[in-house]
């Protein structure tokens, strides 16, 4: 009902019977005392009327009013009566005496007065005859009884309060240990409700309650162990799941990469096929026409115009070959591109009797290059060798290619005569184009004169494809 807490219920269970008992006992004592006081008042009244009847018996018998007056005065003085009244057997009022005190609750008593002959014969006693003589009425205030009642209220109340205090003290003393034990259980239960399996009940009870606390602790320990095992299993399952997810992710990533690679491959294949078609068209179309034009030109008479046209057609044919070469599928690796360039350049150097010292590091074998990169690189190399052939008069060319840290470095030296005319170099388009292409490669180009008088060209570009 209104008491939901165990402690409150325990308190009510112990205190309510106590209060009820004290109330019942107090009421019982109070009623008993009040009855006793009332019976004392009645007893006093009866006693006084009996005494008055005895004392007034002879005066009533003889009708002696003076004697009745003496009796009345004596009784009023002795018992503090409010009034006393004597009536004879005929109902005639013989005497009324008042003391004038009418304060308080008036209690009235009346008793008939009889005359009874004494029994004086041991053997044949005559039947006793009670002859009525009259009656006596008295009245007195029960102030003392009221005081006794008030005193009884105070005493009973005091006794009840003392009993209540003692009872509460005993209840407190006897229930404290029980209360503490139950409180400990409740506190632990609340912690347990919050999943705190480390909580333990303080074993502060006694007897069966202590056994219950121990059992409760054992249950908690069992729960804690079960929880740990469960947590361990969950962790293992989670780790396994994470691993599976990770593997799945890796597989997905690999699959995506494969897919991208497949797409790239397909795209590359398509590009390569298109490039091959363009190369074949350029080779078969433009190249054929250039070769046919040169053949037709060979049959013409020699002239300056013919020479110029022949040179331009030859240069165009070489340029076309360079473009085709750069677009060739086989030359997407730097080593292959350089090897093809060496082959072509060697055919030009041999008639001129120029020795080529060619060395390419193995890193070039694994360095892939794009066709555009290859084209820029081939034009730079072609321009460099053309300049050497045209202007240096060198008899030896030294070529080195290798990886240096993050960059790839190509170094070309000749043993000719290099006259770095800054004005001419700045006006010419060749070196400017070479530097421009080097920048497009993401690298740089330096030209310097070496101590032997020749020229050194150093090209660096990122080794990443």
């Amino acid at each position, binding site marked *: 009902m209104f008491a939901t807490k165990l402690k409150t219920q325990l308190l009510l269970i112990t205190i309510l019977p106590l209060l009820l008992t004290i109330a019942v006992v107090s009421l019982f004592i109070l009623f008993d005392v009040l009855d006793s006081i009332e019976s004392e008042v009645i007893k006093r009244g009866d006693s006084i009327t009996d005494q008055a009847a005895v004392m007034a018996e002879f005066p009533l018998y003889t009708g002696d009013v003076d004697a009745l007056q003496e009796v009345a005065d004596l009784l009023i003085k002795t018992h503090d009566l409010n009034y006393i009244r004597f009536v004879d057997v005929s109902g005639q009022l013989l005497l009324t005496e008042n003391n004038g005190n009418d304060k308080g609750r008036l209690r009235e008593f009346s008793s008939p007065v009889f*005359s009874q002959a*004494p029994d004086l014969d041991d053997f044949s*006693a005559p039947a006793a005859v009670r002859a009525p003589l009259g009656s006596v009425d008295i009245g007195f205030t029960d102030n003392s009884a009221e005081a006794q009642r008030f005193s009884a209220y105070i005493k009973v109340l005091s006794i009840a309060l003392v009993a209540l205090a003692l009872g509460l003290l005993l209840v407190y003393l006897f229930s404290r240990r029980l209360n503490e034990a139950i409180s400990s259980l409740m506190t632990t239960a609340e912690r347990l409700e919050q999943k705190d399996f480390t909580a333990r009940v303080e074993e502060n009870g006694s007897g069966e309650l202590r056994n219950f606390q121990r059992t409760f602790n054992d249950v908690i320990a069992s729960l804690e162990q079960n929880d740990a095992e469960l947590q361990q299993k969950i962790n293992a399952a989670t780790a396994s799941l994470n691993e599976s997810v990770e593997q799945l992710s890796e597989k997905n990533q690999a699959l995506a990469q494969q897919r991208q690679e497949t797409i790239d491959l397909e795209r590359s294949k398509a590009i390569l096929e298109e490039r091959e078609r363009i190369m074949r068209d350029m080779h078969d179309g433009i190249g054929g026409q250039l070769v046919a034009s040169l053949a037709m030109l060979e049959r013409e008479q020699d002239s300056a115009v013919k020479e110029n046209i022949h040179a331009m057609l030859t240069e165009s044919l070489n340029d076309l070959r360079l473009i085709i070469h750069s677009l060739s599928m086989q030359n997407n690796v730097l080593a292959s591109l350089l090897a093809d360039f060496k082959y072509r350049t060697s055919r030009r150097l041999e008639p001129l009797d120029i020795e080529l010292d060619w060395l390419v590091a193995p890193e070039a074998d694994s360095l892939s290059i794009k066709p555009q990169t290859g084209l820029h690189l081939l034009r730079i190399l072609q321009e460099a060798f053309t300049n050497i052939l045209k202007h240096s008069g060198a008899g030896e060319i030294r070529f080195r290619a290798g990886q240096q840290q993050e960059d790839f470095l190509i170094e070309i030296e000749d043993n000719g005569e290099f006259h770095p005319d800054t004005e001419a170099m700045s006006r010419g388009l060749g070196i400017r184009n070479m530097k421009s292409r080097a920048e497009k490669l993401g690298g740089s180009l330096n030209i310097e004169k070496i101590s032997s008088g020749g020229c050194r060209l150093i090209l660096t570009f990122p080794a990443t494809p």
Partner: protein
Amino acid sequence: MTRLLAVFFLLLTVLSPVHAGSVHIVLSADSDSHLQAASDIKAELEQQDAPPPVTVRLLKPFQSFQPAADDLLVTVGEAATRYVSQSYSEHSQLYSYINHMALPEPQAKHWASVMLDQPLQTLLDSAVDIVEGRYHNKLVIAVSEENQSMRLQIDQLTIPDSVELEVLVIEAEAEPAKIIDQALFNAGALIALRDSRIWSGETAKWMLYQSYKYNVPVVGYSQSFLKAGALVSVYASLRDIAHTTAQQIIGWQNNQGRLTQEGILYPRLSIDYNKNIARALNIPLPESMTAGEQNNVRD
């Protein structure tokens, strides 16, 4: 209880064999006191080795019964005594539980009477013991005018010189309580004697009241007087009366049907006193009365 005893005695009467030399106890009434008296007498007789055959009858059934000539008729109470004394003059008769006023003029040749009362002289002696040496040494006796037997006893009293005796003769119309009022003024004790005109009913009550009012102790003639307010009672107890009666019957049996004692017989004397009255009247009792109960019993 009374009915049971009556039935018991009636059955005893019917079943008992009746023969010459028997004892017939005749009860004046079937009251408790009469039945108890018969029972006490029989109990005394049964203590003998050869008790006489005893029958107990109420007066009325006894009137239709004819006892043998050698039977002893034992009466209990006044009515039976009066009837037996008048009707069976040839039989030996033993009266018991009777007082002087009720004792008829005996007609039988052999008779004896065990009295309820003690001699008046005994009461006077006890009263003398009380007043002797006191300032108020007057003894007062009230007797009705018509009570000749008592007046005769009064005339025969031996009065010591240390006391004064005032006898008040109450006339028929006079109120005893008022008459005695004047005499009690300087009295030392009031002696009550068995006189139904004075010491019965309301009169006795106011006699006692008057004496108490004047602080005059009363010497009564029965144990009941103590309860009524007397200081001292000089009497014969009922058991002693039964004992004396039984002794007379045994004597009759042993004396071949003749009474060993005849005339008026007094049982053993008992004297009791009321301590509360003595304290209220502030009267020191003589040591002979207060020494112990045994001293209050005189053979």
